[in-house]
């Protein structure tokens, strides 16, 4: 087993030169001794030589989008051999599974340590308190977010109180057009949230915008959140600027409100850029050079202008996994990245917009 290039194991706070880091990662993943079977099997099928031809992040577009193959690949084959026979695994996690069978990745503890160091720094920058308990209505099971945040909360010195969410079931209900059933599911979540909110010392609330909105139908819970909760972290879907402003000014003026954006294909999440005003979109900076984004015009295969919307391409480059050039279904606004960061910052990530067709309905109304 060859020695690991130290650039792949830098501690949090030391940022490698991105392209140098990328080349080291390519060497790691495409070496017989250290690479994962997944990549070694596919290396011959590539129409280029990754070791010779991939010099910069811009070259990642040479890679075909292999994310679909993550639906069927043996999970073990995703783990680089360089970790030896007993790597410390956090878990095997699925993508949402909105379209077809879920895509699967393996998260190693080494990476999660680095990710959580970044998360902690971001949450501190937002003023999210440490040493408080979190109440989280987020998915567990095959979804990465549950396992990641339980570790995060423990590291920050709090207890995790959880209410489970099954996003795939919710999507099925909505796809069937059963809005009432979907509403009942959300009520079911609120019913569960109310107990720890009443009886426990909850300092941070983590949930989706629709659940938070629904919680606000109940005055008792609004009062409890006002009294106890010092930070609210919203994740999973969009929160429009008007609603965000209402939370900050009328509903929960004393709590920190910040959001997280996670994606299984980048093995984690980031928090919004701290210090944004209510009139700015929620901007997510990459955890560069590990988790990076490009916002592109799909037809032209080039970046859209800053401020314009386009499809999101994500890259994960790390020691534990290499997953470049993964085209997401989502659209985002391309935002200029902070100095030294690779790719783009993104804002207003959302699925393809749908339009109401104007059709004639008889009658005068």
């Amino acid at each position, binding site marked *: 087993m060859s020695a690991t290039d130290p650039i792949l194991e830098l501690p949090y706070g030391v940022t490698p030169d991105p392209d140098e880091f990328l080349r080291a990662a390519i060497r790691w993943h495409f070496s017989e001794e250290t690479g994962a079977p997944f990549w070694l099997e596919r290396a011959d099928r590539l129409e280029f030589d990754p070791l010779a031809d991939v010099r910069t992040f811009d070259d990642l577009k040479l890679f075909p989008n292999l994310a679909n193959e993550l639906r069927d690949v043996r999970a073990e084959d995703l783990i680089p051999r360089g970790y030896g026979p007993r790597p410390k695994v956090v878990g095997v996690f699925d993508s949402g599974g909105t379209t077809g069978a879920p895509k699967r990745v393996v998260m190693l503890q080494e990476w999660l340590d680095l990710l959580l160091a970044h998360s902690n720094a971001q949450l501190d920058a937002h003023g999210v308190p440490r040493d408080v308990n979190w109440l989280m209505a987020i998915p567990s099971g095959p979804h990465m977010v549950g396992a990641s945040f339980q570790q995060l909360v423990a590291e920050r010195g709090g207890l995790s109180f959880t209410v489970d969410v099954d996003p795939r079931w919710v999507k099925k209900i909505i796809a069937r057009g059963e809005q009432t059933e979907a509403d009942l599911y959300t009520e079911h979540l609120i019913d569960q949230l109310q107990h720890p909110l009443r009886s426990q010392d909850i300092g941070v609330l983590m949930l989706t915008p629709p659940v938070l909105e629904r919680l606000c139908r109940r005055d008792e819970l609004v009062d409890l959140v006002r009294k106890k909760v010092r930070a609210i972290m919203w994740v999973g879907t969009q929160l429009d600027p*008007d609603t965000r402003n*209402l939370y900050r000014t009328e509903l929960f003026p004393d709590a920190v409100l910040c959001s997280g954006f996670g994606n299984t294909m980048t093995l984690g999440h980031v928090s919004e850029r701290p210090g944004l005003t209510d009139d700015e979109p929620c901007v997510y900076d990459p955890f560069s050079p590990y988790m990076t984004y490009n916002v592109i015009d799909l037809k032209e295969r080039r970046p859209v202008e800053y401020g314009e919307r386009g499809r999101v391409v994500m890259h994960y480059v790390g020691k534990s996994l290499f997953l470049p050039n993964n085209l997401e279904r989502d659209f985002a606004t391309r935002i200029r990245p902070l100095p030294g960061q690779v790719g783009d910052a993104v804002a207003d990530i959302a699925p393809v917009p749908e339009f109401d067709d104007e059709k004639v309905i*008889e009658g005068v109304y």
Partner: protein
Amino acid sequence: MTERMTEPHLLDALGPSGPYRARKRETVTDTTGAPVAELSLTPRLFVTRALAALHKAAPLPLERRLAALAEAGRVFREETVEGLSYEEYERTVARVSGIPLPAVRSAADEIADSARRALAGAYGALPGGAVLDWRDARTRTGAAVWTRRGEVLAVNAAGNHPAPHALWLEALALGHRVAIRPSRREPFTPHRLVAALRATGFGDDHVVLLPTDHAVADEVLRGADLSLVYGGDDVVRKYAADPTVLVQGPGRTKVLVTEGADWRAHLDLIVDSIAHHGGVKCVDATAVLVEGDPAPLARALAERLGALPSLPADDEKAALPVQPVERARALERHLLERAKGATAHLGGDGVVEELPGGGAVLRPAVFEAPDLKGGWHTAELPFPCVWVAPWSRTSDGTAPLGDTLVLGVLSGDEDRDAGLVDTLVADPTVANVYLGEHPTHWMDRGVPHDGYLGEFLMRTKTVIRG
């Protein structure tokens, strides 16, 4: 059309703590496509909290409600409200909704009158045996007390015509708190009305204006105890099983001309019933059913309706509705598709006449349907569009006369038709029956439009004491 154009007017939501200006706004355009206003759209959370505030608010005492309503009607009709004079208001509504200016003015009169006499309509629904207060002496031996079925009424309003906004004023008179979700095409009327009500005594948490996009509309209804909803057949079906929602659906107003009636003597009346206010109201006739040969009447209607001028909606002489060209064309396509199999007397080649300044007039259409089984006569469209069809009392019977908001009957023999009228008055799907020389759009505050709103808003309960 652009001489009045300045900065688009900012039309705020009117929330329970005052006006609310959202970041998310929708541009309200006139029928030429020129921007007229920026309407703030409230997010779901705002709606949720606003409805909660309405629930917490206590109604004003009756006397103060009535005084505030009456004064609000005057302010609405005469004063400058939120920077908009009455004259600017009526022209803006005409330009934006395409409703002929004289119709807008008439609707404003109607709203002002309803505000002044809201109790006339509201107390119309009061059951004969009921008292208004549990303190009434009659409760000492047991009496029905008339009480609200719920405290908060949501109105999902339509933009076809301002006049429906006259109706929910009755709810305010009865003590309900009211949330209006305005039409995004014509939010000016409810905005002006709610602002006037707040200026004359109603609290901000008694009546609110909550413009929302389509996705948030249901939240307005959900947060209310009772809802009044305007819409087409799909909306009627959606809420059919919900006793807390009163739907004002298609009117499918009809005029029946029975055998022997001298329709020539009533031609003005029939034309008026079809084309009143540009044919945009639910009480404008969609069908004229003739016992006998419908062709001569269809020809006469075509001649009269064809003479109506094509004018911009804000012209003092405007009589036909104006729409953006694209929407007008969509309606025209729908009409011509529906009209297949019917004989055109007017409008067979189309009904759209584009105006030089932009927008398009929807000109009248008269089609003669071969029968009632084909269903042509149920196609209600928002302009003077009438289906003239033969009706036989023996082979058709009264079934095709049902599903009607107003049924005008021009009888050729009142004695012969008395039994027919009995059937029509008894038919639960016929909301109103007008016999003789009364246009289908005749209304009065004291009589119900589609039942009394109070039948829906109120209930009786027994109180006995002492």
